């Protein structure tokens, strides 16, 4: 896998999250029943940052949730080695809530499909909205995002990789390409 293009640096990433935060706030005004849930792994950190921005602007103390969709994936039967089951922790009752689901990259839509199934097992939210940092196209399911940081055209052999300083020591978004032998 080699780097092809820097899509966002740290500043651009922060600007995109700030814009998404404002768009979320334009649409959601009842914070008594509002929550943000990040998808494992890097969506979790984006959700935390968006929540922090919301708390600053609206003077709130919201805590974001964490969702792992491994157990809801549709490719379990194909995989010989099982993916690691990561932490799920939603520290609020989602019944009746307006939820914003946050992920880094929207691609086939299968992960979001799994997330919707998982959330429904926790309760019945009033609405579920989707925020993604990047929409790279190639959807395989009828799923779309409500808030998008950046929309780009990609080839199937390419990948979009987010780095966040919480676990990767830097904030950046890269377009990557498979090399021969990958």
């Amino acid at each position, binding site marked *: 896998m080699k780097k092809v293009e820097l899509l966002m640096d740290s500043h651009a990433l922060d600007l995109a999250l700030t814009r998404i935060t404002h768009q979320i706030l334009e649409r959601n005004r009842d914070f008594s029943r509002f929550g943000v849930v990040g998808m494992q792994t890097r969506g979790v950190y984006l959700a935390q940052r968006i929540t922090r921005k919301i708390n600053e602007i609206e003077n709130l103390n919201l805590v974001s949730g964490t969702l*792992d969709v491994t*157990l*809801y994936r549709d490719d*379990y*039967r*194909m*995989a*010989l*080695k*099982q*993916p*690691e*089951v*990561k*932490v*799920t*922790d939603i520290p609020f009752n989602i019944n009746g809530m307006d939820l914003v689901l946050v992920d880094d990259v929207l691609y086939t839509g299968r992960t979001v499909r799994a997330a919707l*199934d998982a959330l429904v*097992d*926790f*309760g019945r939210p009033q609405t579920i909205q989707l925020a993604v940092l990047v929409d790279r196209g190639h959807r395989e399911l009828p799923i779309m995002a409500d808030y998008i940081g950046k929309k780009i055209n990609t080839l199937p052999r390419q990948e979009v990789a987010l780095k966040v300083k919480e676990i990767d020591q830097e904030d950046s978004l890269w377009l990557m390409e498979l090399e021969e032998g990958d």
Partner: protein
Amino acid sequence: MGLHIQHLLGLEGVSEEDITLILDTADSFYEVLQREIKVVPTLRGKTIVNLFYENSTRTRISFELAEKRLSASPLNFSASTSSVNKGETLRDTIRNIEAMKIDMVVVRHSAAGVPYFLTQCTNAVIVNAGDGLHEHPTQALLDMMTIRQKLGRLKGLKVAIIGDIFHSRVARSNAWGMSTMGMDVVLCGPPTLLPQHRESLGVPVTDNLDEALEGADVVMLLRLQLERQSSGAFPSIREYRDRYGLDLDKLSSLPENVLIMHPGPINRGVELASDVADGPNSVILEQVTNGVAVRMAVLYLLGGGENA
């Protein structure tokens, strides 16, 4: 990622990495069990046969619940109501069940080695739910999960396992698994109920209870099979209780936060006094809860793949 083992036949020889992966995955399933809806769709379409040639309530129910909570389809087989009574061999039974397109087999049998034998005559994934005097790996895994949950680690902790060691597959699985995880295990029981070739277990074995309890972080009592008394293994239940049973008096000499465990079913007032079994140090019911999570983890980690 993924386990190195294809079947769970026992914990002897299973790596620290594999045991850690099972325990970590079990912690995630523990969270699933706290949800309002305790079912995930992961093993939808998988058929799992619970092949029980020996009586069992807890283990069979625990496996069946684990299977249902993973959305698998369990099929229960008990020897007493089957063609085994008509003289069908184990090999024929399993080949016939396999012909009905099943994916995994959870087996309990009074003969050691039956789970291994099954891997030789079917393609299904085999999980050992107790074989003879050999192993009961999921019990040892749930014991380790419970200890890790309560004390935050395994490495360096001392565990005293007390009772009928000779007949205990729980003791054997724990001796192997816990040693692999860097724990100090000591086995203790009356000399007549200790195994002959004890050095093969790789852990100290003693008939001196005080020695075994010295410095223990965890004390695990084993069920005394009362019918063994008739074979002369111990003179009377009262003597066994006095010398090897754990009561409040013996508990008071142990550290305040010692964990008291028992694989069940308990003989109250024999190996374990009621006020200890129900006391603040007891994690016996947590063991049962964790059993479902550990079995979900094992089935999840072994159950994937087109040809599983």
